[in-house]
């Protein structure tokens, strides 16, 4: 058959019987959380296009909050309908899983996003410019920093209300990411939530050069890692002849009923499997911020507008760990004797690396960035457990950690001087004397990061370490505890600095936030203490949600 004839046949086959292509069967109800958020994002775009500027802020805030709340309600509805346990299933033609971990993580992401939107909408911290209240975002991001266009935009009272639909798009991607049940959906979800984040990082109103540099770095390195991920997907497809998780897992386990000649040729080629698996892992580890793929984290966390940093640090981590869990527990469980030792190594260098480098940090945002790296290591210890307890402990840790992180970054937005946020640690000296409440709240978050009992950090750390020890990773737990001890040093150093140092005369002031940021911080404190004092209910919840559908 000639080449042309082949093409002709494809044409004719397609055109002859279009009705034989099965129409996709989409379970709209089960995908409701994602659909609501993405729909609201599109509404947000329309608002930008159609509404006058002065109405956009209120409309966007309203749409975002309502959409996130509605999506969360939909998650609750699905969970109440037993979709997390007995009725867990694969929806959307095998593309998306609806099961316990997916619902738990989606719920967490939505709540985190809701709180983050509060901090995005904060407009009382900076002094008003030309009589217009301003938020953390540049008046007109496309304008050259310090240029005339920018000044004109500020004077005109422009604000970048596009951040709301951008956040909603990112959230939409994050909702799909941990639920993705084939590698292509995984990749698409990754890009859907990454691209808005790159843009958001570039939008800081102050220190715009730093912000833009961070965004470019994040974009470049993100694209670099995406390339690895995509190449890994290709290799895995080459190995298994399919991109669905279940299909790959079947080939790995050698349980394929119908072995085609093509498959027979590649199936035995473990190099494809191992290299492809490692590359996909690398793409996820990049998003998690595990050493040695962490180097973007401090620069981006520091440069991005602080509300964005908080959102990114909390929600991205939840989504990426969800995807990692599903990959390791659903696709590659047959390979765990290969990946477990490797992940051991990654977890060790991540815990130690994050904790050690944090010791000499002088900027509070960078400090929190390294702290997030160390925490990624702790969560990896739970991932490595490869037990049901491992899954549920990671789920619990993610929920606990994300609210602490959001709260901590929200407090960072409050401490300001003439140049905006005063993030250099030396400026935080004696803060406890001048603003005891703010310092005390930050101390609560730091203690939670350090894993002091009666905070959620302790409950989470205890859960992952226990799961890891039960899963045979005792040595990892020892290293984890050592890292925790190192990490406790720099957390407590900040507390000492705030409460036991003389305040500086030229020190920063603490801005009085609107109810929005106050609510975000208060929610952070309440969740931190409730999960610390009475964690059992939530541990049980995570335990019920800890089974992946395949």
């Amino acid at each position, binding site marked *: 058959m000639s080449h042309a004839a082949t093409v002709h046949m494809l044409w004719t086959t397609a055109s002859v019987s279009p009705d034989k292509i099965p129409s996709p069967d989409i379970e709209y109800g089960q995908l409701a959380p994602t659909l609501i958020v993405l729909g609201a994002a599109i509404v947000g775009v329309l608002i930008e296009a159609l509404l006058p500027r002065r109405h956009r802020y209120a409309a966007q805030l309203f749409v975002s909050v309502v959409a996130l709340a509605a999506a969360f309600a939909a998650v609750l509805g699905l969970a109440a309908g037993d979709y997390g346990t007995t009725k867990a299933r694969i929806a959307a033609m095998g593309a998306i899983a609806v099961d316990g971990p997916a619902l738990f993580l989606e719920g967490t992401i939505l709540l985190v996003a809701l709180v983050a939107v509060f901090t995005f909408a904060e407009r009382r911290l900076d002094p008003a410019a030309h009589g217009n209240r301003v938020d953390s975002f540049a008046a007109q991001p496309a304008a050259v920093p310090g240029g005339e266009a920018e000044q004109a935009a500020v004077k005109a009272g422009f604000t970048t209300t596009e951040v709301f639909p951008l956040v909603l798009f990112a959230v939409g991607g994050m909702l799909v990411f941990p639920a993705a049940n084939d590698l292509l959906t995984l990749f698409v979800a990754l890009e859907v939530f990454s691209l808005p984040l790159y843009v958001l990082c570039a939008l800081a109103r102050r220190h715009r050069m730093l912000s833009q540099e961070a965004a*470019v770095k994040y974009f470049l390195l993100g694209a670099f890692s995406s390339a690895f991920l995509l190449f890994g997907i290709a290799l895995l497809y080459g190995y298994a002849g399919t991109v669905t998780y279940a299909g790959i897992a079947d080939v790995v386990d050698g349980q394929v009923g119908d072995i085609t000649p093509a498959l027979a040729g590649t199936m035995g080629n473990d190099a494809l499997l*191992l290299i492809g698996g*490692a*590359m996909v892992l690398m793409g996820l580890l990049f998003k998690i911020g595990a050493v040695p793929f962490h180097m973007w984290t*401090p620069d981006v966390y520091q440069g991005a507008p602080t509300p964005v940093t908080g959102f990114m640090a909390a929600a991205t981590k939840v989504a990426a760990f969800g995807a990692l869990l599903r990959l390791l527990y659903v696709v590659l469980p047959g390979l765990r004797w290969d990946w477990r030792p490797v992940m051991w190594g990654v977890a060790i260098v991540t815990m130690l690396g994050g904790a*050690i480098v944090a010791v*000499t940090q002088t900027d509070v945002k960078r400090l929190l960035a390294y702290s997030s790296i160390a925490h990624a290591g702790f969560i990896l210890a739970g991932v490595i457990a490869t037990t049901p307890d491992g899954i549920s402990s990671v789920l619990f840790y993610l929920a606990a950690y994300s609210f602490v992180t959001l709260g901590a970054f929200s407090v960072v937005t409050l401490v300001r001087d003439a140049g905006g946020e005063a993030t250099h640690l030396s400026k935080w000296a004696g803060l406890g004397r001048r603003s005891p409440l703010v310092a005390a709240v930050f101390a609560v978050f730091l203690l939670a990061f350090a894993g002091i009992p009666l905070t959620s950090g302790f409950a989470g750390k205890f859960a992952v370490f226990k799961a890891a020890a039960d899963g045979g990773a005792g040595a990892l737990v020892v290293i984890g505890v050592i890292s925790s001890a190192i990490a406790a040093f720099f957390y407590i150093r900040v507390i000492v600095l705030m409460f036991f140092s003389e305040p500086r005369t030229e020190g920063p002031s603490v801005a009085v936030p609107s109810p929005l940021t106050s609510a975000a911080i208060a929610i952070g404190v309440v969740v931190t203490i409730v999960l610390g004092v009475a964690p059992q209910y939530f541990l049980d919840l995570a335990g019920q949600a800890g089974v992946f559908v395949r």
Partner: protein
Amino acid sequence: MENLIGLLVAAPLLGAALLLCGGRRLDGKGHLLGTALAVASFVIGAVLFADMLGRDEHDRALHSHLFSWIPVGGFRADVAFQLDQLSMTFVLLITGVGSLIHIYSIGYMEHDERRRRFFGYLNLFLAAMLLLVLADNYLLLYVGWEGVGLASYLLIGFWQHKPSAATAAKKAFIVNRVGDVGLSIAIMLMFTTFGTFAFAPVLSHATDASEGKLTAIGLMLLLAACGKSAQVPLQSWLGDAMEGPTPVSALIHAATMVTAGVYLITRSGAIFNAAPDAQTAVVTVGAVTLLFGAIVGCAKDDIKKALAGSTMSQIGYMILAAGLGPIGYVFAIMHLVTHGFFKAGLFLGAGSVMHAMNDEVDMRKYGGLRKYMPVTFVTFGLGYLAIIGFPGLSGFWSKDKIIEAAFAKGGTEGWILGGVALLGAAITAYYMTRVMLLTFFGEKRWGTTPSPEEPSAEPAAETAGAHAEPHPHESPKSMTIPMIVLAFGSVFAGGLFSLNDAFLKWLEPVTSHSHGDSPIGAATVTAGTMVVLLVGVGLAWAQYGRRPVPRTAPRGSLLTRAARRDLLQDDFNHVVLVKPGQYLTRGLVYVDHKLVDGVVNGTAASVGGLSGRLRKLQNGYARSYAVGMFAGTAALIAATLLMRAV
């Protein structure tokens, strides 16, 4: 009726809470409130006693389970009370003497500006002591045990502005801690041996455990008893504890708290009965302390310290009796009760004398006070006759039985113990006669020349004119009435208890009793006791009654000088415990500085250095980061392949 048991403890506890937390509003009437609640507790005790008498003697124990305190797995600690005849005896003694001393303190502490606090502490003591004797398990007993320790500490140091009082309080607390460790270890051993620490199961299954375990438990209980009851080797705190206000010395450091050790040993009788080695240790401690306290009591010129030596010695008798086993338990408790009466009376008398003498405690500066303070003289005198064992008075009945039981122990041991007990009786007669003669008889030795020493600066004394010449006078009614009541007890209690062996029959169902076979008859023992009594009194009279007493103490023999220094107990502790302890501490500090801190600081420094170096990897160039990621991915792939290869 069971519900009343909780109220026994609750009444004084409420008083303590109100008085200590109530603030200055209660300054005016607080002492009356505290006294009323102590009396209320006594009334409840009396009602329970009447109820108990109305029941069959084997059906007298009451139980009251309040709540589960610590239910964790197989570990179960309850707050539950047990009121049997033994506890009842203590309840009446504690609340009875306690109430009298509350009343006495109304007069004694009249001018103290921290009076409300004083009564709060007294109430706290009563509550803790009642908890101690009412607990139905060792853990709750331990709570009461620590509670009385705390109250004792607070009350010894009540005049905390005096450095000597503050030091004495600390000394008492620290020495007691040593004993408390013994009790806590004993409780842990019980839990590992029996799986519980409630009295009933532990004591009924005591014989199931190996003798070694029981000996260990017994020795630890003995250590606890030594601490609380000031027995050798943990006796050193009691003399100094006399720094506290005199009512405290009377209640806590004579009548009740210091007898807790006797209670503990008697209560744990089943354990000691099955551990003869531990029993031997108990009688040894008792016999040694009996002589130790008596000798110290002979040499002290401070009236309260002389009485403190006597207390130590009398408790030595009780411990000795308790160590004799079933032949001694009843008499230990009987002597405990009679001693509670006459020793409390003697202390209150001493307090009355001090009150009259501007808080002078040196007996060499007393003399001839019988004319000035007739009531004090008579009540103190009756207490004196009781303690030396004058025939017919309380001490005679109880002490005689102990001496008899000591002989009845049998063998060489019996002869030694009996001999020691007899010797102790002689010394008791000697030192108590000495106290009596120095205080109430002879020439007056006060006021003729100005005192070369500063009188101790108690607030009460300051208001009365500390530097003025003392004008001895009888104390107010609130002080004399308790003394009179206690004097009645000193005279009649012993006889009443011995009528028809009433006390023995009362307590026997709890402690069990067996008559030992004394190698010498009861009459012989009594006769011997009378002889040594007369010898002791005669010696004292020859020394202090016939010739004038110098105002300053003569140098005295080597033994006298040693006894004045409490038989070198503090020197001993200093050399044997404090010095090595200090060397050990210095050594540990050195190791801590050089080794531990060295490792810690070294680790911190190396982490910091590593951090600084690793930080340089973060150079801000996206290209470097990308190289890092590439290398990382390569390493990841290599490691994965390597894992497959090996």
